[in-house]
């Protein structure tokens, strides 16, 4: 055997050893991260043990709480199924970072019911298969899912979540989450949904347009296919029809959710039909492509759309001037730095823990997810039942939970009557390029920018529900796939 081959085989042996190390460590990791529930017998035994406990010792603190999966005498495990490497990664990373900061803060203040909160973050890469595999990976360890990214992804694990009797906070605003016949209340919607938002946005923009121009606007609706795009498009088109306005270009489900699609058909449709306002249910990348393409062909109308169409990072892109001049930005929650009571604790915590990050509206989303999860766990602890069933029951009693101005009040009760509890209000913001650039633009960090920095979203209309959204009889999901 010549030298080269010898060296090569040596290299391979090193690699093999490394591989073996990785495999064996993986084994340890798998074993240690499984918080004692790989054998079902153990888990089922736990609650019976603890239910007997009060009769023996009532003095033990926290001993009078029953629990099963994901909760022990001194810990509560919370799971996040987050898109950390997929298309929404920049946004979701910020959201998860804010949740981590929140739970650190709670743990420093003695946790919930004397228990420390442990967080398991799993990357789903926005892939439904991976979402399902990762759910399987954590299902025996967590008491609650404090974030599940994506509509089809979350819908894809509903059957498993129902088997486990667990509740999840979705990072998606599909109207099906508020529809008990769709998810049997296992997914707890946050704020309003794409559909009701679409109604509010169309009504608001039509009114302001008419005030400014003396005549109502004509509309175009462009959207992705599926639970996001068509749910938003449903709401927008419902409002356009109810208000008696003209829909001059309907591109529902015509936008392709791939970043490299030039969207020629949609752009041509917008330019040739020249609507006064375009309603978009897409993502920021596609929005930039379509806005830029339409502007190049001379389109000068107004733009608006569902919340996920917009990202403040668009102010770093070439379409920033159009965003600044012509985009009406709705919000389910307030933007970073908005002057509401709930913002101070968030800003202080982020300043203390993560001054290195750049300001982001997504922190508010993560903070809200964590706050409602905290409330659910606290209610369950107060009721003495921290089993998964107990946690779900506690969640479904929530009425008018107050986010101190960060978002509208949240209710899940009574669970079989969504029309009575569904959140209908949104806020309206105006992207402000000058303020954003002045504060330092993309170079801002929370620690160095004045007042924690800004994402350039000026609040112009605090939380409101329009006439159409208020009157809409919400009995179920607007769009059913």
């Amino acid at each position, binding site marked *: *055997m010549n030298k080269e081959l010898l060296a090569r085989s040596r290299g391979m*042996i090193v690699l093999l050893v490394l591989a073996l190390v990785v495999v064996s*460590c993986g084994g340890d990791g*798998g074993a240690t991260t499984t918080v004692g529930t*790989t054998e079902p017998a153990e888990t089922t035994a736990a609650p019976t043990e603890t239910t007997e406990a009060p009769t023996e010792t009532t003095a033990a603190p926290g001993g009078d709480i029953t629990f099963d999966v994901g909760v022990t005498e001194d810990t509560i495990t919370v799971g996040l199924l987050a898109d950390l490497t997929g298309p929404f990664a920049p946004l979701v990373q910020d959201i998860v970072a804010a949740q981590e900061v929140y739970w650190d803060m709670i743990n420093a203040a003695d946790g919930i019911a004397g228990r420390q909160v442990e967080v398991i973050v799993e*990357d789903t890469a926005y892939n*439904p298969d991976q979402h399902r595999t990762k759910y399987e990976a954590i299902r025996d360890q967590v008491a609650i899912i404090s974030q599940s990214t994506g509509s089809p992804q979350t819908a894809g694990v509903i059957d498993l979540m129902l088997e486990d009797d667990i509740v999840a906070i979705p990072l998606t605003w599909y109207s099906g989450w508020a529809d008990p016949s769709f998810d049997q209340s296992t997914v707890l919607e946050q704020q309003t949904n794409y559909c009701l938002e679409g109604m509010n946005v169309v009504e608001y923009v039509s009114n302001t347009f008419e005030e400014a121009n003396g005549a109502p606007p004509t509309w175009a609706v462009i959207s992705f296919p599926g639970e996001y795009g068509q749910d938003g498009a449903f709401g927008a088109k419902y409002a356009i029809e109810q208000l008696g306005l003209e829909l001059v270009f309907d591109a529902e489900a015509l936008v392709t959710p791939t970043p490299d699609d030039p969207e020629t058909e949609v752009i041509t449709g917008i330019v040739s039909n020249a609507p006064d306002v375009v309603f978009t249910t897409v993502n920021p990348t596609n929005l930039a492509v379509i806005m830029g393409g339409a502007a190049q062909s001379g389109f000068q109308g107004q733009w608006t759309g569902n919340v996920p169409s917009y990202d403040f990072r668009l102010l770093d892109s070439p379409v920033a001037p159009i965003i600044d001049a012509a985009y009406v930005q709705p919000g389910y929650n307030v933007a970073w730095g908005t002057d509401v009571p709930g913002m101070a604790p968030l800003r202080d915590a982020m300043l203390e823990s993560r001054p*290195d990050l750049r300001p982001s509206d997504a922190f508010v989303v993560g903070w809200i997810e964590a706050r409602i999860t905290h409330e659910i766990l606290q209610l369950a602890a107060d009721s003495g039942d921290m089993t998964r069933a107990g946690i779900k029951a506690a969640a479904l009693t929530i009425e008018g939970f107050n986010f101190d101005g960060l978002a509208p009040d949240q209710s899940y009760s009574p669970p079989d009557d969504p029309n009575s509890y569904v959140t209908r209000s949104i806020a309206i913001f105006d992207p402000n390029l000058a303020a954003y650039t002045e504060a330092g633009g993309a170079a801002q960090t929370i620690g160095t920018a004045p007042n924690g920095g800004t994402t350039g979203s000026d609040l112009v209309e605090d939380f409101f529900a329009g006439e159409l959204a208020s009157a809409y009889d919400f009995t179920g999901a607007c769009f*059913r796939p």
Partner: protein
Amino acid sequence: MRGRPLLYTSYEADSAMLPSATKKVAMGVLLVVAFTLPLQLIPGLKWLGSNPWLVVLGQALIFAIGALGLNILTGLAGQVSLGHAFFMGMGAYTAAILGGETGRGVIGFELPIWIWLPAAGIVAALIGILVAPTAVRVRGLYLAFVTIALVFIGDHIFRNLRNVSGGPGVGRTWPALEVKVWKEEEPLLAVSSDGSWFGIDLSRQAKQYIFLLGLLIAFAIFHKNIARTRLGRAFAAIRDRDIAAEIMGVDEVSYKALAFAVSSFFAGVSGALLASFFGSRTPESWDLVLSVTFIAIILIGGAGTTAGAILGAFFVVMVPRLVENFTRLLGELAGGEGVFAAIANFILKSGANDFGLIGTSVIGPGLSTFQVNLLLYGLLIVVFLIFEPLGLYGIWLRVRNYWKGWPFSY
């Protein structure tokens, strides 16, 4: 004459599936271990038998079936194909139409698995024969381009046949893995629900794993038999020099078409199983990335060998999860004391001023676990291509040969 390595006294012995007693015993042990994995009997391997890992292994088993198919075409017959995802999609939608439910805008006939699973393979194989005439006219890189085109044609068809695929961004559901005689309520063999088999209580994940393992073994034997018989030798002759093969009487056109057909059969079955295993899929999931994943499996595992394709599938599916667990373990070690804690602290970056590579939060400073995962994964593929063209199977050969002559290595 017994017990001498590499000495075969008959042609049958030389081409036997497991040519030596050692191999027979080793395979027997491996099969026992594999089948009893869900029972968590072996101390060091209990973690692999846990439900979360059984799901990962289930996916690996399905990928292995698909990889065996591509291996016939690419590894044995030498035809590089990037169209594997297209054939998987064809198989999956055949299964969805025959076995799926009608409703929500899609059609389905709710037929049992013994119809939809073979049909998935057969339909994919027929389509393979259909496209073969164009494919046999080109070689190498050009064939790769022809087969890429298949993926895009498939993408267009799947997106637009809404009553079959459910449409982009929405998708549809697939029949569960259940063995039924016809459309009865209680399946003959309940694979997708918890319950007992032969008096042993098994979870749904364990049952699916065992079911898929059985299927993989059947397909692996099929694959091995192709490789070691007349058909396989014809494929190899075409791979090594097609003109020479034709001079020797191997009908190139029909053998290439046959390679496409058999490969597509495996792909169709694998696609149907994958969709059924995960329950639902969107039409855009049968994309080029999936095809490339299978090429990676073949290259990592070792082209042309049965064991290589299976090893590669397990490697590609399991490594990302192992890496995640490894970094998580580092995080736990860093909190402790001793040498390991020091090493873990060295690798981890807990704040802006701390030295290290991997950050402890999902977002800076340092790389997140998931970024490291992607990097490491890519790096491993590059390392394999450069240092070990024979793949994992090549490593295994070296290890085996080393011990064969031990202690006299050379």
